């Protein structure tokens, strides 16, 4: 069968979060969302990596430097989760994990 060689599950992606921001509506909505994304990312100690494809209001926030220590990772994660969970502009957020996908 076609190899089920999905991406190596131990591949690495740095700490990153997908975030869905509340749309303010009105004109310049896109711009407003961009600014909003920058602000929220900064508040969470992350960097706004830009909009996710064609999904309006969805942004990817990444941690600027790939942390090394597990403890450090935990601290960063907790801090980011706390900010994103508590931010009024954030409708939804989800830390990005590796997906295991197999060719069929």
């Amino acid at each position: 069968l076609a190899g089920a060689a999905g991406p190596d599950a131990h591949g690495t992606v740095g700490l990153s979060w997908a975030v869905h921001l509340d749309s303010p509506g009105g004109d310049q909505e896109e711009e407003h969302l961009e600014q909003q994304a920058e602000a929220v990312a900064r508040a969470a100690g992350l960097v706004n990596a830009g909009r996710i494809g064609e999904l309006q209001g969805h942004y990817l926030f990444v941690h600027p430097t790939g942390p090394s220590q597990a403890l450090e990772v935990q601290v960063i994660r907790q801090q980011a989760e706390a900010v994103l969970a508590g931010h009024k502009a954030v409708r939804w957020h989800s830390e990005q994990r590796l997906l295991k996908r197999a060719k069929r």
Partner: protein
Amino acid sequence: SIHFNDPKYPQQWHLNNRRSPGRDINVTGVWERNVTGRGVTVVVVDDGVEHTIQDIAPNYSPEGSYDLNSNDPDPMPHPDVESGNHHGTRCAGEIAAAPNNSFCAVGVAYGSRIAGIRVLDGPLTDSMEAVAFNKHYQINDIYSCSWGPDDDGKTVDGPHQLGKAALQHGVMAGRQGFGSIFVVASGNGGQHNDNCNYDGYANSIYTVTIGAVDEEGRMPFYAEECASMLAVTFSGGDKMLRSIVTTDWDLQKGTGCTEGHTGTSAAAPLAAGMIALMLQVRPCLTWRDVQHIIVFTATQYEDRHADWLTNEVGFSHSHQHGFGLLNAWRLVNAAKVWTSVPYLASYFSPVLKENKAIPRSPRSLEVLWNVSRADLETSGLKTLEHVAVTVSISHPRRGSLELKLFCPSGMMSLIGAPRSMDSDPSGFNDWSFSTVRCWGERAKGTYRLVIRDVGDEPPQLGILQHWQLTLYGSMWSPADIRERQRLLESAMSGKYLHDGFTLPCPPGLKIPEEEGYTITPNTLKTLVLVGCFTVFWTIYYMLEVYMSHRTVASTQGCRNGPCHWPQRSRKSREEGTELESVPLCNSKDLSGAEAESGGPPTTSDLLGPDLLCEGDWTLSQNNQAALDGPYQHRPPDLLQGQEEQIC
């Protein structure tokens, strides 16, 4: 009447089966009428597409392609240790391998454009998947995805929030608003007793779920059953049966052609190719029109293992084969006369809290929900398409559970089949199962969910915490459906399949793509390199000039009297052709007066004999003219005494 010089075309039994007539996708008649997928773009979302290979290059669409693993526009596959990154290229060949190029094989839609999105060859996240599903979605019409969660018989997974949002955005805004067509492979977990109702891509209402049958029309050993399967088409079977012949990559062990493509991976692209043929004859088919045409035209056939069940409006469905075999002739003739179905209507029941124990087989837990006419008034929903049931169940061994859904007509769907490999103790947490078996049936009435525990361990109680029923359909009445069935049957003669007959097609929407200009890392690196090189060179050149200046200046020292730069001729001053030139040699003025009083020295005065040495001086136009003057032919010694130049 169709002949190709492609060497492997005769072995492509799935296109035209000479050995077992009828065991193919019945596409040659469509080709004879010049329906080859022209004007349609299919993108293979996989591990890359080797678009330089002869069979792919003529139809390759760079504008529909992208590489999300390397973040650059070129989806070329990368050789890997298992030499396994040929998958996307093989799928692409099935769809659009170019004909009559004396190379390998022919694609189902050999007139279509083929693109690649490389996303499987590296770490994959929800956001990458979401980007892939909408990448160039105004260029790519059909997304062919021959991959999914592990088919290990114990995984319950699918698109998460972002992936679902991208699929939904794709069907709403993709393809100028007609909706992207997502074709997914149903899964290869047959040997692990897997079922594609545990695969969220197969369960999704936004995807066309395609299963596989072998050359004899039977469900191959690797194939999975599920209630959400729309149809099947051909692929390889066991060792005794032929696999699919298609283009291959020519990297590593690849030869550019393979006779061994198999699995449901091989079936999905064939379906994508047939849908491309449909879109050529009717570009304005919406994503739901395509699903409807598949349901109306897939053909049931004799297979005693298949549990065919005919529903209230005459559609026969099997958990193994969906609504049956895809048939290109039927699909294309139906597309030709198809007018769009009414808009999608949906109904959501409240979340029904049960907290009831699930008894051991043969007893079962039965919960009902009645959908009244009043419930459906607002949505206008009359007949069904997809029916979904979202459940939360706790159970120490998830694979022991069996879930069946009965539509008001009594049509049964096995939406959660027991899985012997699945011993996961986490149960189901808002997992949505779906079925297409009630397609076209009336939506009103009582729905019955029956759950059993078929495990054989000591009695452990599973608990149904809550569940929710979701109906998708339209305001079509059963009569409308029967009318449409009649129309299609009359079209199957092919009488409409010519250019003279064309139904009006609404124009699509102009939807801008969010193509924020992002400099790719490669471009960035190149720019940085060029920039560094430029800076370095500038610094070097400045130093060079400065040093040569200094050298000139340091040896410029005048011994007797003030230093004289050669006088500039009044003439050149007047003409404004004064050249800012620094003599590269030193001029020691022996007869200062002369210099002062003499007429305007011509350039040859300035350019004394020593300066006539070649190489380290430059001539401007005036200088050249001067050289042509009176001094030109005087031997160097006569020039003595004018000015002695020291280089």
